[in-house]
């Protein structure tokens, strides 16, 4: 064969004789990049969480200690953890409830042109700029914004006022309340829930639903005992995104929300203005741990087949 004489031909022959060589050549660049740039940085960060900061000099003390982790359990810090996990849970639950009808309709009833509309209808908000989406809610929730105007025009301002006076979820206005933060989180992460739920529902054969009806189940019973269990892996897959993204976000609570911090803000402040890298690192370990536990449970429930 003429080509074997050329350089390309000789390399080709080597690949043919040793397929592992080709595999290694393919794998080395990406694994090196991710291993050094990403994993290297990640471990460097984790290592720093075992250092502590000297309270008098403000310098980092490079001796192994669990003291920094202990600081996480101080009431003011522990509140941040609880608040963030509670918010992530609430956002995930709400996202599942709002996403389900959209996903169900798109998977079961939409076809032809409507399928495209539903598809792009979820994709466009998913890929729209994150900051623009947050910004649009600043416009909506502002005191002079559209939502207040709507309540006023409908002469329902007293409802809004009553709601805002509820401690915990209310506040001076919606844009500085936990409800505001919650709404923005729900809005920004909702598409991440719709897509996997829709993917799971599309795999449910309609004959199964017909069988359930033929065997005498009411539509509600079919939903409860047939559709929901089959959609569950999709819901869990979606919840991985909504939960993880809420845990680590520091921009949304900074722009729309109260002055009480979430984990992301704490990490940002401790590494920045406060210069306390060890505590920032310890805070950053919490989402990793929570997600690790979450992913283990999700894997058990078969969520990864729906991704």
């Amino acid at each position, binding site marked *: *064969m003429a080509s074997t004489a050329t350089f*390309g031909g000789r*390399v*080709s022959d080597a*690949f*043919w004789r040793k397929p592992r060589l080709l*595999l290694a050549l*393919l*794998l080395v660049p*990406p694994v090196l*990049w*991710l*291993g050094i*740039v*990403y994993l290297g*940085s990640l471990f460097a*960060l984790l290592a720093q969480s075992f250092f502590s900061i000297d309270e008098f000099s403000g310098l980092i003390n490079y001796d192994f200690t669990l003291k920094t982790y202990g600081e996480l359990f101080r009431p003011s810090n522990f509140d941040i953890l609880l608040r963030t996990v509670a918010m992530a849970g609430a956002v995930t639950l709400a996202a599942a409830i*709002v996403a389900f*009808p*959209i996903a*169900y*309709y*798109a998977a079961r*009833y939409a076809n032809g042109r409507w399928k495209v509309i539903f*598809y*792009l*209808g979820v*994709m466009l*908000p998913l*890929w*729209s*700029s994150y*900051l*623009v989406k*947050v*910004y*649009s809610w600043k*416009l*909506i929730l*502002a005191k*002079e*914004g*559209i939502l207040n105007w709507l309540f006023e025009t409908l002469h329902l301002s007293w409802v809004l006022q009553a709601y805002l006076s509820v401690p915990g979820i209310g506040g001076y206005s919606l844009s500085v309340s936990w409800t505001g933060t919650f709404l923005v989180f729900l*809005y920004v992460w909702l598409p*991440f829930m719709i897509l996997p739920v829709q993917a799971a529902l599309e795999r449910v054969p309609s004959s199964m639903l017909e069988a359930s*009806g033929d065997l005498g189940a009411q*539509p509600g019973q079919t939903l409860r005992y047939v559709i929901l269990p089959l959609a569950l892996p999709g819901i869990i897959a979606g919840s991985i995104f909504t939960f993880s*993204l809420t845990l*680590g*976000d*520091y*921009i949304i609570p*900074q722009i729309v929300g109260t002055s009480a911090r979430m984990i992301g803000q704490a990490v940002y402040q401790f*590494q920045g203005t406060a210069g306390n890298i060890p505590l*920032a*690192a310890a805070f*950053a370990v919490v*989402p990793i741990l929570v*997600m690790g536990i979450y*992913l283990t449970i999700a894997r058990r429930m078969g969520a990864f087949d729906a991704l």
Partner: protein
Amino acid sequence: MHYKASLGLKIAAAAGLLFLHLPIMLIFVYAFTTEDKSYQWPPPGLTLKWFAVTWNRPDVWTALGLSLRVAAISTAVAMVLGTLCAAAVARSRFFGRETVSLLVILPIALPGIITGISLRSAFNLVDIPFSFWTIVLGHATFCIVVVYNNAVARFRRTSGSLVEASLDLGATYFQTLRFVILPNIATALLAGGMLAFALSFDEVIVTTFTAGQQQTLPIWMLEELVRPRQRPVTNVVAMVVVLVTFLPIVGAYYLTRGTETVAGQGK
């Protein structure tokens, strides 16, 4: 038996879609408002003058230019690394295969703030000054997964016997790559590249940690959100950003339409 959706389901689905779209549409109205001190609704009047004001703002152009350059280079790096990784994982079974796919997904599965602070402290540790290239380093890392997802799906559908036939007929690996593999995966790569570009163009959380004095467009925007200087300019930029990100998404959709896995599902 019911083949028609119930009214309740229709209303819930429609309300959900409206919830997803109305806020973005609102931006389009605000870009034309005459009010420049507050977020007043309804707008007291409509004007086109903010488009001209925005056009003449050098800081917007600088930020846009930086964002485009970062996105272009990060996408190029991610396309090479993502495709290599996809080719390895899709075509063979080897020890540690699961680990490699986990490694690719990790930068996007863990919250962005962790990627960001890890990179920042690593750069500090080895004394790399923050620059254009530190931004690219971060962006390329989380863009790999988008290209990888698209490419791996296409590799799985492309029959391995095609490659074997090409080799049996005497083509070298390079000829096979050029004439068999690349034409087969081209649209998937293009779609993956577009999505990676969109992801990088929009990224803010990791960038706040890996940028020095430079402002990408999202960083510029964040600055305006925290400390508003000229609200109408922000409105116009927001509207343009929405329009610009629509293009790659619709493009990626039409490129991978009709295949099993349509691009863009795993942001």
